């Protein structure tokens, strides 16, 4: 599991935004996995054994909405523990509560936050997640 760089999957259907996010992640020393659609992301997860440390998910995707994607993620034993941070341009209580209920870690509003702020949040979750894994592997400690 423990690669040199944390792997961060970004699912964002706006290519310009994806470009910016990818670039910024690289600059902060993480490894981005860029996906322009939900299908693309699911393909990646199926075909590569190495799962990402965290998923950055846009709610509104052209082929699928955030809820459906989350459900698919939770159905798979290998993926269900990957932390998800939702970054969307709308945050109605209905969507936020739905996503959080399905296990999303955080729901952020796109235009409200700086890019480096969001990356900082995501990194925080990765550290948290890795700590948990360690604890699971050493139940005695």
């Amino acid at each position, binding site marked *: 599991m423990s690669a040199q760089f944390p792997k961060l999957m970004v699912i964002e259907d*706006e290519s*310009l*935004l994806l470009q*910016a*996010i990818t*670039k*910024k992640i690289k*600059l902060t020393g993480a490894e981005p996995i860029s996906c322009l659609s939900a299908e693309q992301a699911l393909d990646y997860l199926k075909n590569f054994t190495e799962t990402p440390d965290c998923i950055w998910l846009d709610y509104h995707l052209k082929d699928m909405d955030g809820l459906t994607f989350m459900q698919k993620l939770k159905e798979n034993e290998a993926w269900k523990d990957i932390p998800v941070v939702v970054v969307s*341009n*709308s*945050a*109605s*209580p*209905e969507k*936020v509560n739905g996503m959080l209920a399905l296990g999303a870690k955080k729901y952020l*509003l*796109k*235009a*409200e936050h*700086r*890019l*480096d702020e969001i990356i900082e949040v995501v990194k925080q979750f990765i550290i948290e997640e890795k700590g948990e894994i360690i604890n699971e592997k050493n139940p005695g400690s």
Partner: protein
Amino acid sequence: MKIRTKIYVSFLTIFVLVASLIGLVTGMYTTNIVRNKIYTYLHLGNQTKAEHIRTFLRDQKNSTKILAGTLSVEQYLMRKNTDTEYLSDRDLLAECFGKIIENNPNIYEIFVLNTDGKIVVTTDKMQLGLDKSSDAYFIGGKNDTYIKNLYYSESIGKINYTISSPVRDDKTGNLLGVIVVRYDPKNFYTIVKNENGLGKTEENFLVNKDNFFITPSLFLGESVILKQKAETQNVNECFDPKEIEYVTNHGYGGLAETVNNEIVEAKDYRNVDIIASHAYIPETGWCLVTKIDKKEAFGFRTNLILIYLSIFISGGFVYVLTAFFISKKITDPLKALAEGAQKVEQGDFDYKTNIKTEDEIGALSRSFNKMTAAVKTSRIEIETKVSQQTKEITEKSLDLENQQKAILNILEDVEEEKNKTQDLATDLQKFKLAVDSTAEHIVITDSEGIILYANQAVKSITGFDSKEVLGKKAGNKDLWGGIMDKKIYEDFWTQIKKDKKPFLGEFNNKRKDGSKYIAQANVSPVLDKDGNVAFFVGIERDITKIKDIDRMKTEFISLASHQLRTPLSAMKWFSEMLLAGDAGKLTGEQTEYVNNIYQSNERMVDLVNSLLNISRIESGRIIINPSPTDLGQLVNDALTELQNKIKEKEQNLIVSVHPNLPKIDIDPKLIREVYNNLLTNAIKYTPQKGEISIFISKNETDILSQITDTGYGIPKKDYDKLFQKFYRGENIVKLETEGTGLGLYLAKAIIESSGGKIWFESEEGKGTSFWFSLPLTGSVPKKGDVSIDS
């Protein structure tokens, strides 16, 4: 007019007529008697006093005469001045006179004149030897006892009168000299002044033949004596030659028969109305006036009127009371009979009147009871027949037809009126046309909501034509109503029927074809003169389309704003990266420009957020989720975010929160937005080093928040536009280019939907204060699908 009223009126009319007549006659009669009495008393009083004065004068004359006849005076005057006893006799005589004066304080002086008119003996030695031959008392006194009228004596410097008498040789009767007694008039004044008891204004005074006062006036005192004239009507009559002649020869007695001629009602020397009597005094040629003020003389009339009025009022009261009982006695049975008739009319045929009197009304009542019984019998028969043939429904439809006919009749009546007055007809036609053809649905119902009239729009809006509608209850489920919660209809009915208040609100209705629509309704009760509901007028408008458009507009704003967030994010993030040097280090100028792009983009993000919030509030989709909140804490949270801006402008911040502020149930997210907006404005529109104060206080019902600044203020002409969307004050647009003009609009919308109020006061150049209140009872929770900042 009611019988009772008639009885009242006739009783009262008689009473007033009789009382007035008695009052008038009594008044006139009494006045006459009193006038006669006053005349008599005045006349008698005057005569008595005149006699008294005459007697007094006669007595004084006699005294002087006796003094003149005294032997010692006679002997002294017969002596020659060469006689040895001449001087001793003179002193003896003077001493003798002095003793007389001592015993009689009314006498000033006694002296004796010889035949040449020289003073030879006197009580005042200074005067001895003076020549008085030309004085009236010498000339008059040589012949007979003589009274010299009141005059001012230069020798003693006082007003006085003198009585002089001749001294004769007892044997030859030759004149030896004249004795003169000089009197003080004080005693005489008292005699004249003494009242006859006629009244406070009774006055007696004497005038001499030149019309001068010779005794004091009651009103003006002694100063009038020989100084002021009294030339009044009765004085003139007194000095009438005929009267002087009569009194001189016959005395006063003969005049008694002509009392009325002796009494004068005129003005006196003060120009006051008086009643007066007079008497001529022949001995001295004086006139005695006795008079009284008319006002006092007839003053009793005022008392008489008062007494009469009190008798009249108390009498009237007893009279009215009597009239009330009599009329009640008569009208009560009549009223009972009328009530009976009304009860029978309403269908209570078992009702019997309970009037036991043996008079005509009793008889009428018994006939009435018999008639009621007869009507009841016949009615039962009819009802039996009718109920066999007709069922309830047909009866109802009959009633309905009758009602419709009645309405048609009314309309026909209106037509008749129309023919009578052309103008009125034209007006009515115009109004009817207007009501008939207006686009709004108008119905008029009776007090039970049964439709009496429906215009053409009722058909075009609801689909029911007027024949289907007339006679049915408005808003029934057979018509356009019935699809909302039952309670809403009940509340509506209570408001218009029971509280008699107009209703203004929205209804969800359905058309004949079942499709639903939203109506904005305005239903007003029309009251009759007793305040009961006579009709209802209902005006409804189909606002479904307006509502749809409104919703679409809100949705459009929401959608557009969301879509804007994607490009805004791109611009934000790329410029952020440029500034961070992610694409290589920028020059100073480049950093400045990219920073400008970044800041402008931030403003656009704010604008989109505000627009979204407004569309949420306007659409009513916003969630209000109250929880117990400490407003002081909320303000502090808001201030923490703004701390940097305040520091940047070096502004002074004062925060004062009521020490026992209770937590209240409000939506903290929403109210924080309000604080945020008001504080941002205060900071933004207050110059460097200004002051911003926040006060949170409470009263019995609300918590008040006040935010005051010492900023630019708001121009008067902007007051009414201040809370409008996109409005920015004219003075601050130039000073601060940043701002959306949405902050106050949003604040107002939030406060009002939270159950509070917002207002402000401002003075241009001095500062502005905003207040908002939130009820202690908290905000009402509201379900919705969006919250602020999402």
